[in-house]
């Protein structure tokens, strides 16, 4: 029925449920069902494994080189995987790998993921599956139209690029998503895009995340669609501040006034953030690299000194941006009260 070639289309939901049930009863029954890389169909004695003999083996011990080869890993890959698995002493590596394979990732991608993030070995298969399902529910696999079969691009890409996302509990992902939607007022679509493009946000401190948003919104006058396009959350706050303040102090960027107007045309955010430093310096800032490096050093020192000042005051509020003396009083007022003015009316 199934050939040994690898399919990249993910299984349907009902199939997943069936397999999970099967695994919970018989953890070894990888050889049955839809495992295209398994050629065990030809081996009749494995078609009906005796439950008793199989159950007595603990799942972790099943990760033999042989089973890895069956999954589709080459010999060298399998050896490396096995080494990594034994080093990590993960007990459920088999189910973890299966979950990843289910996702449609090929063996070399999986190996790269494990190399990038060996903690994945220590996960539990069920946990991992739950997290993957949650991400899927959040829209990371949602296709553009219903007539086209689900294109599994974004979820695989995200996990391959940022394997650490698998280590994060569902609750954490939810908290970040809620912050983006409720406090930063991104649409669900935008929030998904942010998670897909910058999964690093899932690990960041929530208040720092919110501060970065506030910086872009109030200090730079940028709105949500532009933030998503420019992949704002990929950059650290210090780099964002550095690039923005350099432009501002050169007179090339202005904070919009209350009506959203500026005297000059601000360069779009993606032209500032999404380019390499050389391109930024040549095309946007029109400055030398030496100048920018000195500026960065000065900013870093300023931030450090402000941080030390804040330590001495018993103040729990977010660190205020004291960079520019030209800040309007109105700007600070807006920023400080942004929680009250910004929440949607719940009527």
């Amino acid at each position, binding site marked *: 029925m199934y050939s040994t070639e690898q399919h990249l289309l993910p299984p349907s939901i009902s199939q997943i449920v069936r397999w999970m049930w099967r695994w919970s009863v018989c953890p070894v029954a990888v050889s049955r069902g839809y495992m295209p890389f398994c050629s065990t169909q030809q081996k009749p004695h494995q078609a009906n494994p005796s439950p008793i003999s199989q159950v007595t083996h603990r799942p972790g011990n099943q990760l033999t080189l042989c089973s890895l080869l069956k999954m589709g890993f080459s010999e060298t890959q399998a050896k490396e995987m096995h080494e990594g698995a034994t080093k990590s002493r993960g007990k459920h590596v088999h189910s973890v790998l299966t979950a990843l394979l289910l996702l449609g990732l090929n063996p070399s991608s999986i190996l790269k993921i494990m190399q990038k993030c060996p903690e994945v070995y220590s996960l539990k298969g069920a946990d991992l599956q739950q997290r993957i399902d949650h991400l899927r529910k959040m829209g990371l696999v949602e296709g553009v139209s219903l007539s086209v079969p689900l294109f599994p691009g974004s979820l695989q890409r995200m996990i391959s690029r940022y394997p650490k996302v698998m280590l994060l509990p569902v609750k954490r992902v939810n908290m970040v998503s809620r912050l983006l939607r409720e406090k930063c007022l991104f649409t669900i679509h935008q929030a998904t895009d942010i998670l897909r493009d910058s999964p690093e946000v899932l690990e960041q401190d929530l208040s720092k995340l919110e501060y970065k948003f506030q910086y872009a919104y109030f200090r730079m006058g940028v709105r949500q669609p532009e933030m998503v396009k420019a992949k704002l959350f990929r950059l650290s706050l210090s780099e964002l501040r550095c690039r923005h303040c350099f432009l501002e102090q*050169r*007179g090339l960027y202005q904070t919009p006034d209350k009506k959203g107007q500026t005297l000059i045309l601000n360069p779009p955010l993606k032209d500032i953030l999404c380019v390499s430093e050389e391109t930024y310096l040549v095309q946007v800032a029109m400055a030398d690299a030496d100048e920018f490096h000195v500026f960065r050093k000065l900013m870093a020192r300023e931030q450090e000194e402000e941080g030390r000042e804040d330590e001495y005051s018993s103040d729990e509020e977010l660190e205020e941006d004291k960079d520019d003396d030209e800040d309007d009083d109105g700007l600070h007022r807006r920023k*400080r009260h942004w929680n009250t003015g910004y929440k949607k009316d719940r009527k």
Partner: protein
Amino acid sequence: MAASVLTRFCINKSKGSIRFIQRRYRVKTKWAATRPTFPATELALHNFDTSYSIQLRDLWPSIRVAMLSEQKYGALINSFSSAPNVITELEAQGCKDFISIDCTRNEVHQSSLDSMTSHRDSAELDPAALQPSMSPDIKCLVFPKGDISRFNPARPDSSGILGYYLLDAASVLPVLALDVQPGHTVLDLCAAPGGKTLALLQTHSVNHLWANDLSGSRTMRLRRTLQSYLPKEFLEENKIHITSTDGRQLGMTEEKSFERVLVDVPCTTDRHSAMVEENNIFKRSRTKERQKLPLLQTQLLLAGIQATRGGGNIVYSTCSLSQLQNECVVQQAISLAQQELGITVQVQDLRWFAQCFSDTFHFAPQLSVGELVLPHLCANFGPIYMCKLQRMN
């Protein structure tokens, strides 16, 4: 509708502290509905953006960011201090005396040029004009280009005299250009707070120094500075005469009395005005004062010219980038001196001077008269404008 705002105190919400606001910052509750929305620093920057983007074109963004960033200082060594290791301690931190370095390099370059020109007849290279003629005793240490280290405050030695004076290193340049020779009588027309005055005294060539400033409080500051840096014996020698009068009067009362005159006029202090709100000259209440500055500056320079002996030097300097306060004032003063007073004044070329120090400072290219040090993040000194004149009759 006027806001009922208590203006004497301001509650800092983030720190929960109460600050007393001085009278000159308070808002008139009767008429104001909100706090002033345009701080003077913003007005200053707007003024600069409008005029300097045209005057300096492509150079302006780099200057602007440098003026808004932390300034770089130089340590003017106080040779009157008895502390033995002031220079070595500072050099251990990584800074160097830019005056001796730039001069020796220029001399080496000169000697190699001289050996070349001795075989040729070249009209452009005039060794005599290119020979740096400046007081060698002034020492000012700065950190290298791109280094943002700060100086520690100077410590007093056994007699309470401080080892060095922290100032914008570019401020020393007008004093160097003045070229005080031994036995000279020097007039510093607008001396306070005293950095350049101190540098003049470091030359050890001043026979008599007259330091004047209009403001009484600033003259007090000048006195205090000199007391912190000069030994009592020196101050008692009566070599220094400090007055607090209008410099414009000195032109007539002290005609032809000085070999060297330094006219460091009050200006819009561009860097200071862009950063510091307090008593900013760009605030609306001081608009008339600011608009009359070029006239005041011309009058002061004329007075300085009048006070100079024949053959003496005058150096005019400001800390502004504005053409109206720099080149225009000099040219106006020269023509007025000729027409109204019959005094012929010649501009002395400072191009060699700028070339000599071009490794430490960024100079503006091709000014019509004088030299201008531009702020740049890698060498964040200035802005300082200077022009050297010589009285011919």
